[in-house]
């Protein structure tokens, strides 16, 4: 039903732009395009970033799984491995703390006038991705595929109906958020 739209590359450029405007609007409204808020999360003094992310998962997850059940959408997940996911994730984390923005919020920060994001953050991320492209042949041979994960998704890993995971994860997220509010964080 959506195939025509999805394969129309010109329409997708326009959709991408409008979805990006919505995304940037929501990120900025949520407060997570602000260095002070992001670094506050990493210093564990402000939990706005975790609240935005968990609320997005709480709403996004059941909708996407429902549409998957109806045959409207397909999942887009990447396989992981210790060598890529864990090592790359930790490098990313260190960069996250040094920069104080991530690749999406750095764009949002530029939009709200953060010149350190525009002049330092964006060129830095560009150089970092270029560095990865240059190192890719060596990394893919020696490191990236070391210690592959046994499955792509938790329902596959556990061999259960997806809803057996979706519902407990939703309850778990609600409990974390309730806990944060109870503690006044």
């Amino acid at each position, binding site marked *: 039903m*959506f195939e025509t*739209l999805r394969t129309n590359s010109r329409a997708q*450029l326009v959709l*991408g*732009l409008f979805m*990006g405007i919505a*995304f*940037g*609007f*929501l*990120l*900025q*409204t*949520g*407060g997570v395009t602000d260095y002070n808020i992001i*670094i*506050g999360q*990493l*210093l564990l003094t402000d939990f*706005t970033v975790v609240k*935005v992310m968990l*609320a997005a*998962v*709480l709403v*996004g*997850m059941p909708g*996407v799984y429902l549409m998957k059940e109806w045959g409207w959408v397909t999942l*887009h997940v990447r396989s992981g491995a210790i060598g890529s*996911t864990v090592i*790359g*994730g*930790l*490098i*990313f984390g*260190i960069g996250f703390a040094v*920069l104080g923005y*991530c*690749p*999406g*919020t*750095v*764009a949002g920060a530029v*939009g*709200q006038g953060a*010149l*350190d994001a525009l002049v*330092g953050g964006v*060129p*830095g*991320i*560009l*150089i*970092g*991705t270029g*560095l*990865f492209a240059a190192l890719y042949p060596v990394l893919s041979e020696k490191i990236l595929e070391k210690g592959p*994960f046994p499955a*792509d*998704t938790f329902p596959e*890993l556990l061999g259960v109906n997806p809803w057996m995971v979706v519902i407990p994860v939703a309850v778990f997220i609600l409990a974390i958020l309730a806990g944060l509010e109870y503690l006044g964080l």
Partner: protein
Amino acid sequence: MDWTPYLAGAGIGVLSWLTFLLSNKPLGCSTAFAQTFGMIESAIRPASRDKPYWKKVLPTIEWQWMLVVGIIIGAFISSVLAGEFALIWVPSVYGDAFGYDPVFRVAVALIGGILMGLGARWAGGCTSGHGISGTLQLALASWVAAICFFIGGIAAAIVIYGMAA
């Protein structure tokens, strides 16, 4: 209690339904940076197109690239409407700890950006692609990646701000 982060997050959740439904894509940002670098590199040195990574990630303008451009516009509109738009070189929490020298802040941001760009492509995604889109699909790699982003980030932030104290 302040509902704003939850409403913004829920909005991002609804937006992710639409990206899957209308564009057959998850929200993600770091690939667009790699594509931009690839486009610049191949404009300067056409031979660089043959690098294996540019076979895997085509350096071209597509959906996600426009998404990142949109984020800049959307955050601009939102910050202007909220009266929060301001040209700032050094964020206040950073400045109070390390001083308000713009050159030093930009140098630190550049180094942080390099680590982040490298790490994002190494891990196959960022706080959006893994942290939101992957976790909401219950992807194993994305939950592990998101936990590592925060372990690395919290440890590094505590060390960095520990140096200021």
